[in-house]
């Protein structure tokens, strides 16, 4: 057992961290689609939009753990977590399945995706199908060389600026979860209707919208994998997302912890630094403990992915640990910053708003705990 990152991993992390810090020094969370696209180009210039894609498709060919380290560095030095989330979701839940399961025609999208020119959104969630994805109602009816998509997705991250949607639709209603097929649907196709940006509590740098498919004819060459393999493809992409995407939140927690240490060692009350009060120092100790334990679980889950093992329990434990630590640490940070933390300028309230959805997206904490418990034999 070796808990040390290799010299190359440390060097790569430091390089991305420095590049993000420089490129995003003046960046603030923005919701203007044009500005968001420009931010994506900055992220792409550092290689963040294609890290785990093969070099032949414009990526860096990194494995899961190295991709997680890259996203951790992104979250460490970029305060716009919506951008971090959007880029990670594009890469992990969209580009990865197109690369691993796409036809040659679908894979032609990858160079643009790696370069940040083609932005992708993952279109699975529907009004009546959240955790239970087998309940989706969007259908894809085959007619020769094409499918006709009909249905509506209720929450598609990146949708307002997306150029392609990795879309899941029922092709065999009798086969339940394994009757779902996956498609890479170019936005330019007739019948793709993207709604206005959805007002959200946080992650505002990641625009989201409803997406409707109205009699939308999708060429069969854009199907990912075999017909009926969409459920398995989705689970595979979620393993990547639950592992690597949440590394961005390790970065956020690292940054937040440093801010809290700085704040409590500078701030003086009753004639001494507030860090000198045990109630304060122990709060910071617990924040650090949560961060480090979550980090170990996430690194291990990603390492297992790199060994070709999609360990449901390990991924669920990592996802739960990181998301719950992110929420708890953000509440602690708010307390440590006092009234100033409640004001927008300090950035602490934005961190809290950005962390709260982590226990919901990519599989709720409740579902992750169910998986962990049942895998334990309950």
């Amino acid at each position, binding site marked *: 057992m070796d808990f040390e990152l290799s010299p190359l991993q440390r060097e790569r992390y430091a390089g991305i961290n420095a590049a993000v810090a420089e490129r995003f020094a003046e960046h603030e969370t923005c919701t203007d689609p044009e500005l968001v696209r420009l931010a994506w180009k900055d992220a792409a210039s550092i290689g963040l939009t294609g890290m785990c894609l093969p070099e032949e498709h414009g990526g860096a060919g990194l494995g899961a753990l190295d991709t997680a380290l890259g996203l951790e560095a992104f979250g460490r030095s970029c305060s716009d977590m919506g951008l971090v989330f959007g880029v990670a979701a594009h890469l992990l839940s969209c580009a990865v399945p197109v690369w691993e*399961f796409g036809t040659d025609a679908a894979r032609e999208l990858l160079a643009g995706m790696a370069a940040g020119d083609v932005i992708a959104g993952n279109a699975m969630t529907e009004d009546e199908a959240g*955790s*239970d*994805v*087998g309940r989706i109602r969007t259908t894809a009816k085959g007619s020769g060389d094409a499918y006709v998509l009909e249905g509506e997705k209720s929450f598609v991250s990146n949708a307002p600026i997306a150029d392609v949607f990795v879309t899941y639709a029922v092709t*065999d209603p*009798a*086969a*339940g*979860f*394994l*009757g779902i097929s996956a498609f890479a649907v170019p936005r330019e196709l007739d019948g793709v209707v993207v709604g206005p940006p959805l007002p959200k509590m946080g992650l505002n740098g990641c625009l989201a919208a409803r997406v409707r498919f109205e009699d939308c004819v999708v060429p069969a060459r854009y199907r990912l*994998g*075999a017909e*009926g*393999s969409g*459920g*398995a*493809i*989705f*689970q*595979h992409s979620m393993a990547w997302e639950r592992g690597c995407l949440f590394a961005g939140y390790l970065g956020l927690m690292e940054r937040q912890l440093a801010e809290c240490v700085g704040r409590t060692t500078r701030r003086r009350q009753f004639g001494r630094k507030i860090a000198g009060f045990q109630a304060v120092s122990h709060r910071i100790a617990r924040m650090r403990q949560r961060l480090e334990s979550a980090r170990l679980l996430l690194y291990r889950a990603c390492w297992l992915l790199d060994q*070709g*093992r*999609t*360990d*449901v*329990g390990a991924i669920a434990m990592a996802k739960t640990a990181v998301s719950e630590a992110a929420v708890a640490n953000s509440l602690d940070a708010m307390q440590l910053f006092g009234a100033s933390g409640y004001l927008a300028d300090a950035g602490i309230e934005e961190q809290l708003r950005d962390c709260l959805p982590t226990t919901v997206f990519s599989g709720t904490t409740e*579902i992750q705990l*169910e*998986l962990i418990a*049942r*895998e334990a034999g309950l």
Partner: protein
Amino acid sequence: MTLDEVTPRIRTFIAESFLDGDPKGELTESTPLLEWEVLNSMNSALLLNFLREELRVEVPLASINAANFRDITSISKLVSGLTAVPAEGA
């Protein structure tokens, strides 16, 4: 592993994990697991984990489809077939 070895282990796992032990003994080898939603997204993930950890069978993603997971018989045939494949380099 032979079909005779695999089938009862898969049947027991499904009965105990997804059907509260199947107290009425309704689960058969031809019970349509997908159609009756015994195998939903969560249970499929747990079943694949069981196959990997307990039976030491890694099911390739391309083999995770309705034909192979329709019922206990089809799953057992798949698993038995995968265990019969010689390891790389053997």
